[in-house]
């Protein structure tokens, strides 16, 4: 973990940003973050995936959010959420090709402020699970800063980082594509998904996360801090 990250994850930083937060982000910060010493089994997680118009949080925008809650190391499908978000700018051709989300699809969709107001209460007190989390953290953080005055601090498990640690531990040479969500799921004997969108990828990440935890500690008694980013 880099120094910058340490600062960002610290309580001190949290208190600092909390003071600046407004609206739904303020309520988010009212609920204390998950304690890193809690056994994983007792922590609630939110597996989340975003689809965006590009890779740069400063210029690109979120077009959809998918999430599912994990309690007691069990994925709860009744908690599934799939939100389309109307971007401020028109959708570029390349983004449409990637996500198959068209302007007409998002015409009726809520703006990002409304979408955030919807998901922030879900994230409060829980731990974020994402595959390659810098994207999710970057886009959500940027949007929070822009609309609610402060960035988003949330304890996070990055399934890609866990996979990397596994590979390092095994001392295996890395094959190209080995860290892709789909191939990691395959390695853990998880079913393939045919459709790809924010929710299916969030569900896919939730399954991978369970597999990675089961591999470390089947009873879930491991402390949260051991798997945080």
């Amino acid at each position: 973990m880099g120094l910058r990250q340490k600062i960002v994850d610290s309580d001190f930083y949290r208190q600092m940003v909390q003071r600046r937060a407004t609206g739904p982000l303020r309520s988010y910060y009212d609920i204390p973050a998950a304690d890193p010493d809690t056994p994983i089994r007792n922590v609630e997680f939110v597996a989340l995936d975003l689809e965006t118009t590009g890779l740069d949080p400063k210029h690109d925008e979120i077009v959809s959010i998918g999430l599912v809650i994990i309690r007691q190391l069990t994925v709860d499908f009744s908690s599934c959420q799939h939100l389309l978000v109307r971007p401020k700018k028109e959708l570029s051709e390349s983004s449409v090709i990637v996500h198959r989300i068209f302007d007409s699809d998002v015409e009726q969709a809520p703006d990002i402020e409304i979408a955030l107001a919807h998901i922030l209460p879900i994230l409060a007190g829980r731990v974020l699970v994402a595959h390659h989390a810098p994207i999710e953290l970057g886009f959500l953080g940027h949007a929070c800063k822009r609309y609610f005055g402060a960035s988003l601090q949330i304890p996070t498990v990055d399934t890609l980082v866990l996979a990397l640690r596994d590979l390092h531990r095994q001392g295996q040479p890395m094959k190209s594509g080995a860290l892709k969500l789909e191939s990691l799921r395959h390695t853990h004997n998880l079913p393939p998904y045919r459709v790809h969108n924010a929710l299916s990828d969030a569900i896919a990440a939730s399954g991978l996360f369970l597999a990675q935890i089961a591999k470390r500690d089947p009873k879930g008694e491991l402390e949260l801090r051991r798997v945080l980013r």
Partner: protein
Amino acid sequence: MSLELKEISDFLKQHHPFDLLPDDVINALPKRLTARYFRKGTKVLSPEQQCLHLHIIRTGGTETRDPDGQLLARLGEGECFGVRAMFRNGKAANNITMLEDSLVYLLPEKDFHDLAGKYPQFNYFFEQMGGARLRSGMQLLEKRDDDQLKLMSIRVSDLIARDLVSIDIGASILEAGKLMSAERVSCLLITQNGDEVAGIMTDRDLRNRVVAEARSFDEPVTNIMTPNPISIGPDDYAFDALLTMTRHNVRHLPVMKDGKAIGMITTNNLLARQSLSAVHMVGRIRKMTKPADMAKVIAQVPELLSNLIEAGATSRNAGHIVTTLSDAATSRLLQLAEEKFGPPPVPYVWMAGGSQGRQEQTALSDQDNCLILDDAYDPDQHGDYFKSLADYVCDGLDTVGYVYCPGEMMAKTAEWRQPVRIWQQYFNKWIEQPEPKALMLCSVWFDLRPIHGTRSIFEDLHRMIITKAKGNRIFLAYMVGNALTHHVPLGFFKNFVMVRGGEHDRTLDMKHNGVVPIVDIARIHALANGIDVVNTYERLEAAMAFPSISKQGASDLLDAFEFISITRLKHQVRQIRNGDRPDNFLHPESLSAFERTHLKDAFSVIKNLQTALENAFGKSGT
């Protein structure tokens, strides 16, 4: 409903009994589910443990054992566990252990009961499986068990219900009748010098030969008994016993072991239940006079095969039954040929080779056969007779559904219709001067089995082949070289190596890369050790006693053979059920992860034993 949950409902729709639920119900189901992941080896449930969900295996596999540790079931993708807990107030009844890393969907108990309450078919399935009526369900299952299948899996020795009732050869008819009445048996074995079998006497004999002929009861039993009765061995299948009885029109068969009678089985043991369709089919073929009629019976073989496999028959059983039908058609055609062209001028024996010879036929196969003639055969004098006979039978078999052998390895071809002395020359040449072309023939002609005619003609030739092949290291090394040309479809990382391109793109050739390599290995160990059976299972079982293959290796290979063969048969049955032509090309995705792992294991076993084969005999040629 959102698209990604549709994946889950689609998965459920593919599995029984969820497929019985209406669309709107099953589409709403994913929202009721949760998912958990278990590592291989995790014990998920144990008896009396709380279990508030029906567990549906999404990927992976489990093993169910009762509280005494007895294995009850192995479950794979789409199957459910924790079923009994649903009917026992959420208390698990058995031990469930993960055999693989598995993703499992959980349906809450309440939702389960809601569904079971609303949809009787759904309820019925689970009640049968492990619910309130478990005991009656078990009985029902046993009853439903295909009679035919039972006959195939039961050995004659298991059917001997009581001690043999016998009487000495010096007894009178009266004494025999009294004993039968006292012992309440319909059949008596007549013995001499202690336990040597002299004959058999049945209540039918009392009726036909005593009462109807007004014979005195004081006459010796020898006057009415059937001397030297047809018998059967204790290790034969009940199915064979039934066939023997139908063939010879008898109702009792003494069971003989090492020349001594150890019991008796009767049609009552076997025919208590009817519906023995394969036996009926054989019976019908025996009465037919036209190949075209037989074709109608043989056309039902795929259906028969499907029923057998779906009823849980092993591939060994299925191969045996299906081959019995080819044998029946062949014998019947030969009888008809003899009626048409007159009795044979010199003795002959009709031999089946290849899969028919090994009793390993599947859905329809092509024909591999030859004629071995007595050495009194004179081509000028007798050539025409046997040519007509062979043409009649081979053409007949083609009409019936066993198409001509593409390599022309049929009695129809003059080369394969020869007297014993020529066949001796053939085998001499193949064994002493092995060459690649000849090796191709070996896979057919070293698996010969007599079907019809004078079997003793083959015996001397067979002995010669066995003796010659056994001592010939060079020949064996050539056979090994040939066997190793059939590669197992496993890559370095234990991944499947699939057929590429063409009609069968991305499939596994289960015949040439699975079945054939094992058949080849078994043949070599048999030939090397002088083993005279040709069935692959029997060859491997016999080879265990010899040092050329380890006991463990042979036993692993037997398991691998059964698994690969049954996977191939199930694939063919699926095709038959879909109205497609059965073939050997399997898409690995059509298997569950559980089956795929097993298949990989089976292929690794072959690979290891191919290597062992090379070490034991060397490798030469090809």
